[in-house]
């Protein structure tokens, strides 16, 4: 598991399901359908991403699909960082 994925999983588990072992959370588990992250939870995730990875999240990008799974969040973070590097 790469470092970014590990950090995201650790955060999700600690914040939303502290009773679950980190290794049980699959990369492609649907956090929204599973009710792990709801609209309020999504805001928490975004705030944490901005803080942890020093990226800006534009409200217009705040579609649920970007944050549906750990893999999607990781992809979003990677993309945002690449964008930042390119500037």
């Amino acid at each position, binding site marked *: 598991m790469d470092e970014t994925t590990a950090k995201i999983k650790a955060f999700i588990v600690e914040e939303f*399901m502290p*009773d*679950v*072992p980190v290794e*049980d*959370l699959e990369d492609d*588990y*649907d956090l*929204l*359908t*599973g*009710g*792990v992250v*709801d*609209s*309020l*939870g999504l805001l928490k995730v975004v705030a944490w991403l901005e803080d942890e990875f020093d990226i800006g999240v534009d409200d217009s990008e705040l579609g649920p699909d970007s944050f549906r799974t750990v893999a999607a969040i990781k992809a979003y973070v990677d993309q945002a960082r690449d964008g930042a590097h390119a500037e």
Partner: protein
Amino acid sequence: MSQTATRSIADHFAEQAARSPDAPALIWDGAPISYAELQGLADAAFAELEGARLPEDRPIGVRAKKSPEAIALILACLRSGRPFLLPSIELAPETLAQLFAQAGTSQVISPHGPRSESAASLRALVDDTRSGPDAPGSEWPPAGGAGGVSFMLTTSGSTGLPKIVPLQTAGVDAFTDWAAQQFEIKPGTVVANYAPLNFDLCLLDIWTTLKHGGTVALVDQDRATQGAYLADLVNDNQISVLQAVPMLYRLLIDVNREDGRTFPSVRHAITTGDKIPPSSLAELPKLFPNARFYNVYGCTETNDSLVHEFLGLADGNVPTNIPVGQPIPGVVVRVQQDDGSALEGTGTGEFMVWTPFQTRGYLKSSLNEGKFVTLDDDGGRTYYKSGDIVRRHEDGTLTLEGRADFYVKVRGVRVSTQVVEQAIQEHPAVVEVAVIAVPDDLAGARLHARVRREPDAKLNSLQLRQHCATRLARTEMPSTIDIVTEPLPKTSTGKVDRKAVAAELERSRAHG
């Protein structure tokens, strides 16, 4: 008044006592009390009642914890032909005083004797609540007429003052005859009484049994949550009819897991008052190898109205959504849609019912509005609106969707917390669950689930969410799930106490 009442239970009891004086009427604390002995206690109580020269036209208040003397006192009240109010002894003193005043009771009496509580505090209460015909707020007689009222029970209303439900003697007679036939209660039958004395359930397990010459084994209220005590009571007394809330069955299942004990004497195992979890239901054939299993649906206002017999439980035929049952003979059911019309065919609506046993209305007639409705399009029949939402399936069976009161709005969508509980309960590792709607500025309400898992199961919230994902809509999915191993708080009736869970949740939030 004693001329107009049929006094049926007391008369039948006296006949049984004359016919078989040595037959056991009660079993209390391991010892039998014969029909003759109980009749003796009832005679003494009756003499005291007569000696008190209470006004003929007022009800009596009875404050009694379950005991042989308490049962004798109620037999004496029945014999006197007077209505009597029998509220829960666990109510706050002020609430009790209000109820006794509302009923216009001439006096509040309590049993006394070596096996009863007859503390001075009870006497004090009697003096405080003595309320003559001029008592303010007195509602007696009931709107439906005083004719032949015997028991006056109270609803277990969760908010406000419990409602007083006067029961006509004729209705009680019809009910006790139906119950005796349905569950084969006759001389020699031993029936367990689990519920407190003020519950309508006692009309089946205590009063049907004493009317028909059987034996009642009384569960001591103070030990009602001790599995080993309950298991001994069932086996030592060869109980054949068992009626209780699901909690009792849960306690016996735990005993069975610990020491493998089974209960072969039980012929009829009745669950009532709450939905029995499928995980408990599946275990019952192992515990009760010779029993038939029933779910009985009813309430204080109508008494029992529906019975469902579970067939094929032993072959693994465990329904996940338990049918509420078939109408008892004479009972009329109406499923009413939102537009006020009766549902034909499949769909959902509010369960409305008329039974031959039902009250003519609450004592306080202003409470009847919206609960008892007379429908001109239905022959002028007066139905009781249960507040339960039911679904009628293609084969005509009805299942409970939830209480109308349990619907909350989550992100603008109507969600039943009971539907969510049901879905969670279907997970095999779940013992019991409470789903609470937590007020939320953004969503309106967010759902919190507290789940008690089997002690040896490795259930976590992620697995539970995966389980629910195929059963629940997105808005029905709890926002937070708290998995515990200790029992959830219970109400005095043995149901999961969602309010207590909500209060604990509130406290833990307040403390960060």
